[in-house]
C-alpha cells in the first residue's frame, strides 16, 4: 500500500503512460465526467461513478469485427499498448467481474478480450463519492485500488500487476490510514441492496402481475438508455457495411427494449409490447441471471436510473414493485 498526494498524481499517470494507454475520469467542458484519454481535459477522480459505463473501454458502443476484401479477411489489431483504466467504483468492478465471466464463458469473445487481456483495472473508493461521500472499498476485483483519504490517495495493490506498478512509489502509509481503510470496508449494505434482493424474490415467486408491467411499460419511450448505460448489459447487434472495395462487419450495443431485438422473421414478436420487454429487462437481471450465474446481475451502479427520461430505471422499478407487492 502506498500514498499519493493530489499534486503527485499527474507525474504518476505520466509515468504510467510510458507503458499503458491510459483511460481516466476526466472533466469535460460542460461539467460532465467520463472515462477517457487524459490530455484534452483535467483528471476528475472525485465525484463517484461516471455516467457512461466504464466497461466501454473493453466493449465499446460500436466496434469492427472484421473487414473482408480481395486481400482477404482482416481483424482489428490488439491495442499497441495495453489499457490502464481507472475509474471503476466497487459496484462497477462487480459489473466488470460479471461480464468478464460472461464473455469468457463457452466460446470466449475474442474481440472483448483483445482489449481486456493485459489491461490494468483500477478502482476508486474512499471519500471520493458525490460531495465527498464514502464509497466503501472494493478489496478485490481489480489490480489497483485508489482510496481517497484526507486529501490523498491510498493506492492498494490487489494483483501482481498492481504490486509491480506501485513498487517504485516512494513513501509509507500511516497506520491510521490503513485502519480507516479497513474500517470503511465494514460499511453495511445499503437500503437499495435489500430492495433489489426483495424485488428478486418477488419476481422469482411470480408475485408481480402483468398489469404492473403494463403500467411501467406505458412509461417506456424506448430510448434504450437503460441498456446502453448498463455495465452488465452485453447484448449487441451486427451489421455489414458493403462498399465497392470491402465489406465491414461491426457490432453495436443493442437493447432488449427494442421491438426488433426479439422480432421473428415472420414479423411475430414474442415480446411484442413495452410491458413484456420491460418485464424481460428487469426479470433478466433479477430472476434469470441469479439462476444462471448465482447472483443478481444488477450491482446498483444507478446509471439506468439517471439516464432514463421517465424514471423507470431498475432501482425505481424495484422500489415501486416492492412497495406494491411485498
Amino acid at each position, binding site marked *: 500500500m502506498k500514498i499519493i498526494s493530489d499534486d503527485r498524481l499527474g507525474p504518476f499517470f505520466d509515468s504510467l503512460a510510458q507503458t499503458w494507454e491510459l*483511460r481516466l475520469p476526466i472533466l*469535460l*467542458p*460542460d*461539467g*460532465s*465526467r*467520463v472515462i*477517457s*484519454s487524459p490530455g*484534452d*481535459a483535467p483528471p476528475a477522480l472525485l465525484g463517484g461513478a461516471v*455516467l*457512461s459505463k466504464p466497461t*466501454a473501454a473493453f466493449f*465499446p*458502443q*460500436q*466496434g469492427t469485427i472484421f473487414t473482408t476484401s480481395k486481400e482477404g479477411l482482416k481483424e482489428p489489431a490488439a491495442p499497441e499498448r495495453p489499457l490502464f483504466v481507472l475509474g471503476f467504483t466497487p459496484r462497477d468492478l462487480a459489473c466488470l467481474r460479471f461480464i468478464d465471466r460472461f464473455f469468457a464463458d463457452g466460446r470466449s469473445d475474442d474481440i472483448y478480450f483483445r482489449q481486456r487481456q493485459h489491461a490494468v483495472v483500477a478502482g476508486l473508493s474512499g471519500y471520493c463519492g458525490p460531495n465527498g461521500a464514502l464509497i466503501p472499498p472494493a478489496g478485490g476485483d481489480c489490480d489497483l485500488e485508489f482510496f481517497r483519504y484526507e486529501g490523498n490517495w491510498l493506492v492498494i495493490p490487489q494483483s501482481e500487476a498492481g504490486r509491480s506498478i506501485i513498487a517504485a512509489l516512494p513513501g509509507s502509509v500511516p497506520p491510521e490510514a490503513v485502519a480507516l481503510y479497513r474500517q470503511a470496508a465494514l460499511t453495511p449494505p445499503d437500503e437499495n441492496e435489500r430492495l433489489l434482493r426483495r424485488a428478486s424474490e418477488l419476481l422469482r415467486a411470480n408475485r408481480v402481475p402483468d398489469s404492473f408491467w403494463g403500467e411501467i411499460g*406505458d*412509461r417506456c*419511450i*424506448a*430510448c*434504450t*438508455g437503460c441498456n*446502453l448505460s448498463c455495465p452488465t448489459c452485453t447484448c449487441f*447487434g451486427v*451489421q455489414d*457495411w*458493403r*462498399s465497392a472495395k470491402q465489406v*465491414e462487419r461491426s457490432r*453495436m*450495443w*443493442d*437493447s432488449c427494449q*427494442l*421491438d*426488433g431485438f426479439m422480432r421473428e422473421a415472420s*414479423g411475430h414478436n414474442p415480446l411484442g409490447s413495452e410491458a413484456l420487454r420491460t418485464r424481460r429487462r428487469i426479470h433478466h437481471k433479477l430472476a434469470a441471471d441469479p439462476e444462471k450465474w448465482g447472483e443478481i446481475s444488477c450491482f446498483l451502479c444507478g446509471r439506468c436510473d*439517471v*439516464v*432514463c*427520461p*421517465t*424514471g423507470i430505471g431498475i432501482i425505481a422499478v424495484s422500489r415501486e414493485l416492492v412497495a406494491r407487492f411485498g
Partner: protein
Amino acid sequence: MKRTLTVCPYCGAGCMFYLVSDKGRLVGVEPSTTHPVSRGGLCVKGWNAYAFVHHPDRLTTPLLRRDGVLKPASWDEALNLVVQKLRAVQKKHGADAVMFASSAKATNEENYLLMKLARAVFGTNNIDHCARLCHSSTVTGLAETFGSGAMTNSISCIDQADVILVIGSNTTEQHPLIGSRILNAVRNGTHLIVADNRRIRLARHADLHLRHKNGSDVALLNGIMHVIIAEELENRDFITARTENFAALAKTVAGWTPERTAAATGLETGEIVTAARLFAAAERGMIVYSMGITQHSHGVDNVRCIAALAMLTGNVGRPGTGVNPLRGQNNVQGGCDMGALPDLYSGYQKVSDPLMREKFAHAWGVAQLSATPGLPLTRAMDAASAGQLQAMFIMGENPALSDPDLGHARRVLENLELLVVQDIFMTETAALADIVLPAACYAEKEGTFTSTERRIQRLSKAVEPPGVARADWEIICAIAERAGYQGMRYADPAAIMDEIAALTPIYGGIAYGRLDPHGLQWPCPDRSHPGTPLLHTERFTRGTGRFSTAFHHLPAELPDAQYPLVLTTGRTYFHWHTGSMTRRTHLLDREEPSSFIELHPDDAARLGVRNRDLLLVSSRRGKVRTEARVTDMVIPGVVFMPFHFAEGAANTLTNNVLDPESSIPEFKVCAVQVEKLP
C-alpha cells in the same frame, strides 16, 4: 479516444451529447449530464446519432451528369459549372427563374449564407426551406397574434405547469426528451389533456383524451373558448391589460355551443366542457402543439385559435404557461431566424421594407437587393411546371420524397433545366440532379443550431468528412467567390456568426465565445444580455396580444364513396423524415424496416385485412403498396402512414392543397382507398 460536445442532429429539442471517437472514427455517443434538456438522457435516435456518419453510401466527391449518368468530377469543374449554369438560366429567363432551397439540417451560418448567396449574389428572393412544410403556419399565425412566431416558453417550464394541453403533437415520439418531461410532470400532479385522435403514448397518461375528427381543430378550440366565456372562466384582467380585439373573438365563438362543437368534431359535449373547465381552472396552463395543428389548409387559423385560448386564460408570459410550437428539425428554428424565407431577411426583417433592403445591401456591399418577395417552396413545383422556374439549388432537402403529391414533384424536378443538390447521401432528389455536391455532416463541421426553445448552441467537429466532401458553408462561399462576389470570405463559422449578430437584432449578442457550454436563448440583443427564456413577460413583441378569429373550414379533400378513408401522415419514433440518416442506422432501420399503414380493426375486418397483409393504397394522385398494421392507435375511418419510405411513399398520396396564407400543404388530411393485394 476523444469526446466532442455537440448538438443532436435530429429533432428540435436541442439535446447535446458527446461524440466518442477513436483514431478518427466515431464509436459511440455519451449524453451530457449537465445539459438543461437532455439531463443525462437521450432518445433512441440520439443514442444512435453516430451510426450513419461513416456509412459507405456517403457522398465523397462532386458528381456531374454526363450522358445521363452521374460521374465523379473535381470541385473546380463542379463549382464552375454550378455558377455558369445558374447564370445562364438567369440570363435567359431572369433572376427569379432560379430557386434556392435551404435546410433545417444545416447550421445557422449555412442558412444565413445560402440566403445571402441567393439575395446578394444571384439577386433573387427565391429562398425557402422545409419550415414551409412544418411550421410556416406558426410563423404567420403567431407573428400576427403575438408578434413572434417562436415557442414562448422554455422546455423546463413543463415542470411548473398545472395543466398541459397537447394538441397535434406526438411528443414522446417526435420530441422524446420533451414528451418524457411531460410524462414526469403528470406523475408529479400536472393535469394533461391530449387532443389527437391517434392513441399516442401521452394519451395513455392523460386526464382527458379528445379524439376529434381530423381537421376539426378550429371547431374544437372555438368550442372550448365558448365554454370558458359562457361560464365566465376567462382571465378578465389579462384580457383588459394585455390584449386587443377580444369582442371579435367573443362574437365568433358565441355560436360554438358544445352541441355544435360536438357535431363538428365528433366528440361528446361533456368532453368539450370538461376540457374547457380543466384548462381554464389552472393557475398555469401550457399549450404544446406541432404538425397536427400546422399541416392543414387552415393551419394559420388553427394557430390563431391556440394563441387566443392562451390569451383568454391569461396563460402567456409566465413560467409554466405559454404557446409552445415544437419545431421539428434540429435547426428549423434557426433556418427561419436566418431568413431562409422568401419574404424575410435574418431576424424576421422584412424584404418589403426599403430600410431593411438598404441595410442588408450596404452590409453585403451590393448596389441593391430585390424587392420582389420570393416563391415559397411549396409553390415552386407549380411555378416550375408553368415555366416560371427553370433551376433549383437544393441544399440538404429531399423534396422527391418529402413534398406532397410526389408524382407531380418528381416530374417537375426531372424537367428542370438545372438541378443542383448538395447533400450527404444520394437521396431520391440527388439522384435526379445534374450536379451533386458532397457535404460534411453535423459531426464533421463547426456551427450553431437553434433549438425549439430558441437556444442557440454550438456543434463541434469530431471527425473529418469523407473523401473530398466539404462543409456546406465552405461550398457556398466557394460558389460566391466563383460568381465574382468577394463579400463571402470567412476564416471560420464564428466569423459568419459575427456578421449575423451585426445584422440581426435578436441575435445581436450572440458570439461563439458566449455559447459554451449550452448556448443562449434569443432574443439576445447585446453582448451583455443573458438571453431570454420567456417571451412576452411584460408586453407582447407586437405590443398588445391580438385575438384573431377563425372560422371552421373543412379539409380540402374529404372521404367519399370512391376514396372512403381519411389518410393522415407523419413520422415514426425510429426514423427521421426521408430516412437518409436513420435508414442507414442499423438499430433504427431494424426497428421500422418498411412502409406501413395503420388501420383500425373495424376497417380491417370490413376489408378482410390482417396484420402485415400487403395493401394497395390509392388517392386521386397515386397508388402505393404498403403493409397493414391493424391497431386501435387510429379511429375507424382514419388511416395513418409515415412518410419515411421511398418504397411505399406516403407522399405519393398526399394533397398539395395549401393554406392560403402560409402555403403549408395539407399533409394531415386526404382521402384514400385501401385494397388488399393478393
